[in-house]
């Protein structure tokens, strides 16, 4: 299968995602330049972390208007798999491909450290190899990672089982201490309604090799691979249900 890693000006985890997919997961991968107007031949797109456009104005706000985002929007609406990691998540929020918004961390400081997240839904293509309640140890690195959504959005997220990861303690308990940035309802990752678009703040690509002291993140990529390989070209088929977004 083939992954595409989108490169925005200011992306800085693009190489990391590329390396993990190619060298650790062992799948094909290409970079996609933000000025591209078409994205074709990919099973899964990754919007990597970094500081697209310096995170100026608001994180993700400017990248959202990159030419490639139109194509990514229709790729997603056709059911294509999209993962937004950190800044990629923020861009997906700004693009209304995912609901809600990101705000400054409660501490107002950048936080880089390992966090524990709990798998809340394993029926998505990104978590199909996980157990519900499984705790993954994956680093975070952001200053704008406090997820916010109003009550209506929150209701929707819960009803549709769109909360995919929550910050938790080592043992899987939810507590404010283990919520590193103050995210609403401990949210670390969500999907869209149809479950083909994932946004998460932690960096699975940084925790995919034992030498980096955790391999827990690899399961996200491997779940995608296993999903796609079970139903080839799933992501590119046109008969996937179009997603209705809350915007």
């Amino acid at each position: 299968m083939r992954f595409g890693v989108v490169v925005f000006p200011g992306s800085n985890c693009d190489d990391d995602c590329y390396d993990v997919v190619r060298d650790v997961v062992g799948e094909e991968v290409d970079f996609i330049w933000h000025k591209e107007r078409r994205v074709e031949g990919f099973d899964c797109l990754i919007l990597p972390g970094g500081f697209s456009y310096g995170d100026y104005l608001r994180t993700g706000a400017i990248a959202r208007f990159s030419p490639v985002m139109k194509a990514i929007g229709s790729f997603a609406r056709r059911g294509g798999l999209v993962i937004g990691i950190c800044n990629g998540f923020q861009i997906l929020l700004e693009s209304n491909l995912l609901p809600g918004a990101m705000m400054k961390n409660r501490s107002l400081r950048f936080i880089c450290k390992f966090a524990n997240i709990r798998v809340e839904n394993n029926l998505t293509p990104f978590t199909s190899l996980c157990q519900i309640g499984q705790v993954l140890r994956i680093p975070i690195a952001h200053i704008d990672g406090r997820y916010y959504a109003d009550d209506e959005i929150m209701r929707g997220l819960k009803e549709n089982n769109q909360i995919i990861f929550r910050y938790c303690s080592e043992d899987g308990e939810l507590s404010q201490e283990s919520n590193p940035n103050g995210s609403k309802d401990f949210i670390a990752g969500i999907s869209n309604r149809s479950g083909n678009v994932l946004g998460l703040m932690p960096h699975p690509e940084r925790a995919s090799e034992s030498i980096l002291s955790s391999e827990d993140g690899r399961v996200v990529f491997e779940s995608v691979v296993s999903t796609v390989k079970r139903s080839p070209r799933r992501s590119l088929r046109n008969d996937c249900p179009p997603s209705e977004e809350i915007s």
Partner: protein
Amino acid sequence: MKEPGKITPDLVKAHGLTEEEYEKIKDTLGREPNFTELGIFSVMWSEHCSYKSSKPLLRLFPTSGKNILIKAGEENAGVVDIGDGLCVVMKMESHNHPSAVEPFQGASTGVGGILRDIFTMGARPIALLDSLRFGPLDNGRNRYLLSSVVGGIAAYGNCMGIPTVGGEICFDETYEGNPLVNVMCVGVARRNSLVRARATGARNPVFYVGADTGRDGLGGASFASRELTEELDKDRPAVQIGDPFKEKLLLEACLELLNTGAVVGMQDMGAAGLTCSTSETASRGHSGMRVDLSLVPRREEGMIPYEVMLSESQERMLVIVTRGKEREARRVFDKWDLHAVPIGEVTGDEYLTVLDDAGGVAQVPARFLTEGAPVYTREERKPEYLRKIKDVSISTIPEPQDYDGVLKVLVASPSICSKRWVYEQYDHMVRTDTVLRPGADAALIRIKGTQKAIALSCDGNGRYCFLDPYEGGKIAVAEAARNVVCVGAEPIAITNCLNFGNPTKPHVFWQFRRCVEGMADACRILNTPVTGGNVSFYNENPKGAIDPTPVVGMLGLVEKMSFSCTPWFKREGDLIVLLGECTEEIGGSEYLGLIHGLKMGPIPRVDLEKERAVQNTCLELIRARLVSSSHDCSEGGLAVALAECCMSDSGMGSGAVVELEASPEILKIRMDALLFGETQSRILVSCRPRNLPRIERLARQNKVACWRLGVVRGNRLTVRRIKRRVLDVSLEELEENWGKGLSGGDD
């Protein structure tokens, strides 16, 4: 700004040039310089750019070695061969004065500058380290400086996607009003794609790339070459705002440009901006250069040539392109949305010629600007204070009653405590190569595509150097090397940043000489040549010069990444072993400072041969996988080192039970000196009991003292001497104290 009609002696003086310097300029030019030329000389001959006070002494450093590809001074940074066709480019720079005035932006732009130095050589930056010094945290301004400086470094480095993997931080009254902000950058390049900062090939076009030029940072080089006085207001325009986003584009564009084969040379516009980059590249290439200022993109109206030449606007660089390949170069700049314009060309006449709409505005021999600055042998005198503070005897110092309390105070002190508050604000994992994250003795960074890894550490101790600059200089190198050894790497080269007071003060210059001599001796014996560095003089506050503070950035190499070591005890039942000797050395210690309020005494001596033996032994032990952990004893001495080994950075720690009843010599040492004295050349390791005989044998072979201290056990740190309990603290208490030390920065 308006051009003055005439060059008066006052104007010359205001430009920081002496009468003799001015005469030399007139002699060489054969005429009076005009105003623009005066400005050009003032920055190029400033201390910051010309090294006119430090040059003769920097020659004392050993600069060659089997791994050195490009020696210090030849280019913007030295280059170290690490095999496999790869090399490491590294450098450290200070941004002390800008950070004192505007800490966030000052520190930010400091990171920006050092990164450009590395990537303009064709190397991809892979790591940053920061060495910071502030006044005590009980002062609000210092807390503000700390949080702003750390925030500024984080903002720039994180945005660029270069992990900040280590550093050091220390608080002392001497830095009140004159904080030190040194940043080190390490890059990796293929040997055959290094770029020189030289302009060669007459008629090759010279491109200006990056941000537009404004009046910001005008004369920053001369700003750094002056004392920070009370009248800061005047210097405000010297502050700049960093744009890490633009720099990220510059970085990617530069590295991509290399693949086009269109680049002859590159240099970043750092200190002294356009002036420095044009004259240095021309001079290094034995060429001349002609630039037309009317082509320089500007941000502000009405700038005169003087201002354009002296501006230190950030995120700009000069690229010399092969004639005929302009199109390839442009394609890359366009791709990254960067403004790039040809502003002139390389010439064969060895002159820097500056034109404007109106015609010529400056013409100066390029080499005269870069090499012509007079070199001074400054007056030096051994300072008076040394006589007074040296002769203290330990017997006049009361022995503490409560050792537990002392240990808790020490581990909670901001200079010793956990630096998590700092490094968690830095993205230290981006690039997915950080094998050992901050918190260990050194960071360990793997090099993808090879089996290699490099280890990095930053060290220096101003208090030691104040009390004994020669020994202090030695210790800075020795400790940095020891730190990389502790993670399993072989020290191979250093870069440095030398932070001192006003060099025209004889005692400051004496300190400078002695520090350099000490560092040089240590580098020679430990086999770590100096690849370059930076000198920052004029670090003064109203009370006088700061403590002499050389900072060493050490590069270590692991050839085959199958082993590495961390400081933390791993396993119940492991034995704790000390490599190296204990002696009664208490002078200059954190203990004396914190508990007794004393900054005096003879500091610990390093016997460099012994140091080398200890380091080699430790390295052999790690390579043979005989030890489970290793950690050097530094600030706070043996007790603090033990405590640090107990407090694992990632979750559960392990306690230790230590019996100090070895030899009669040790029994002679006073308890506080034994626990908290900072005797050098000591490394604390732990091992499985069955490995002990081999460890002892190896140590004996290397003539290194090896002392079995105790065992990893329980959840307290307990130290006994002859059955008497001298220390007994729970891990919880240790961790609580150790973790809270920097929370004062949360202001």
